[in-house]
């Protein structure tokens, strides 16, 4: 059983296998994500009840919270993939980690922008130098730094390893974001969803909310898979099978 799992896992570390196998995966994940997000947004924005204190403005959580979750989850994934790549010298882990960066950065940017839009009616200000906001901004800057480091290196292989080290250093920011609302007395409200407690939300709000989170996860996975395929084509362009694949595209099949 374990042996079979290890063999299956090792197959995924081959760029060619990944390229071929991820095509149906990204297709189905992408469609599932589109449907789930569409359903969640229609339900959340139009049919979920009005919140007692914040009125209709709370509805932005259906975008704000999933994107904030994803921006942190993707950063954690980049760090884990970087470690895998550094320890086991698996180049595919680096490819995926690299292509996670733009996805994670977009999520962090989306979370900050929707947060600002939400902040205006509820806090009366677009921006506040609050611990949660500041640490999210630092996360966005870390994403930019990772991308800049990749682009600055002449050899992409050294860019991979350098970015992995930087990503590992930046991990210290994740617990700061997570606990910022508990350690400091901030304007940002504390977490609503917790693993240890039942959520204090009515199901008619909670279900679209959870759907939106799942949808964002699936969409990010599909997006990363698609970007990674392009990265593989670019990085492995000297190998035979990539040439064949590109010729197939050129012939328009």
């Amino acid at each position, binding site marked *: 059983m374990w042996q079979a799992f290890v063999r299956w896992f090792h197959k995924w570390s081959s760029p060619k296998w990944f390229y071929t196998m991820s095509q149906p995966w990204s297709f189905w994940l992408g469609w599932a994500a589109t449907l789930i997000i569409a359903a969640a947004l229609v339900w959340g924005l139009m049919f979920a009840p009005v919140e007692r204190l914040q009125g209709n403005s709370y509805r932005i959580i259906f975008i704000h919270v999933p994107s904030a979750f994803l921006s942190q989850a993707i950063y954690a994934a980049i760090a884990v993939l970087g470690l895998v790549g550094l320890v086991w010298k698996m180049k595919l882990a680096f490819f995926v980690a690299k292509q996670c960066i733009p996805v994670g950065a977009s999520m962090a940017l989306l979370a900050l922008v929707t947060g600002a839009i939400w902040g205006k009616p509820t806090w009366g200000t677009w921006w506040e130098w609050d611990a949660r906001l500041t640490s999210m901004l630092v996360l966005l800057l870390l994403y930019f730094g990772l991308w800049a*480091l990749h682009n600055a290196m002449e050899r992409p292989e050294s860019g991979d390893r*350098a970015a992995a080290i930087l990503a590992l250093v930046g991990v210290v920011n994740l617990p700061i974001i997570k606990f910022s609302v508990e350690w400091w007395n901030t304007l940002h409200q504390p977490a609503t969803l917790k693993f240890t407690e039942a959520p204090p939300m009515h199901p008619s709000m909670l279900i679209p909310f959870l759907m939106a989170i799942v949808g964002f996860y699936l969409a990010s996975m599909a997006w990363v898979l698609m970007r990674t395929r392009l990265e593989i084509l670019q990085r492995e362009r000297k190998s035979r099978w990539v040439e064949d694949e590109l010729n197939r595209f050129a012939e328009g099949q």
Partner: protein
Amino acid sequence: MTFLPLLRSVFRREMQLAYRRRSDLANPLLFFLIVVVLFPLGVTPDMTKLADMAPGVLWVGALLANLLSLDLLFRSDYEDGSLEQMLLASLPPTSLVLCKVWVHWLVTGLPLTIMAPLLSIMLGLPGSALPLLMLTLALGTLSLSLIGSIGAALTVGLQKGGLLLTLLIMPLFVPVIIFGTGAVQAQVAGLPWQAHLAMLAAMTTGSLALSPLLTVAALRIAVGD
């Protein structure tokens, strides 16, 4: 050679190199002076307002000056090939990195700390806050040098690493500056400041333990190409 004499000779070499590049060492200090002078000119010459801002201004100035000097940390050794020899030497490379960072702190962080009282008078910071300001700056610049050494190692192989180094390392400096200024501001306001100082010291010791490992890993990438 055994460990300690070797380390001592590395230390002596670093100090000697630093002494011979005196003008490079003066630049961060002058930069610190100019940045601090810009604030009264650019924001307000009102001494009471400046006094409120003083801990932050001094910290930002010291942080930028430190950042400016970091680019030189490994560059000359990388260019003349001695970095390669150092990584191949019998000495554990982490101890060597620590030695270099320690010298970097002695020639930038410590002078910045010593300069801070002069500039704090110009900004009207109450004299009672001075000892704590100097303590936080001494601890903080050490952790800045340690964290910054990772960035310096990551960008050492690049031609124009300076600006990239700033982009990579600045986000990691944020917690240091928050607790550094936090301690001084709390003391000026008459609030308990020990927790801020403890956090700053914890960050310094944490970076002391972890950053040399990452710096060595980054240097190996740069040397490997």
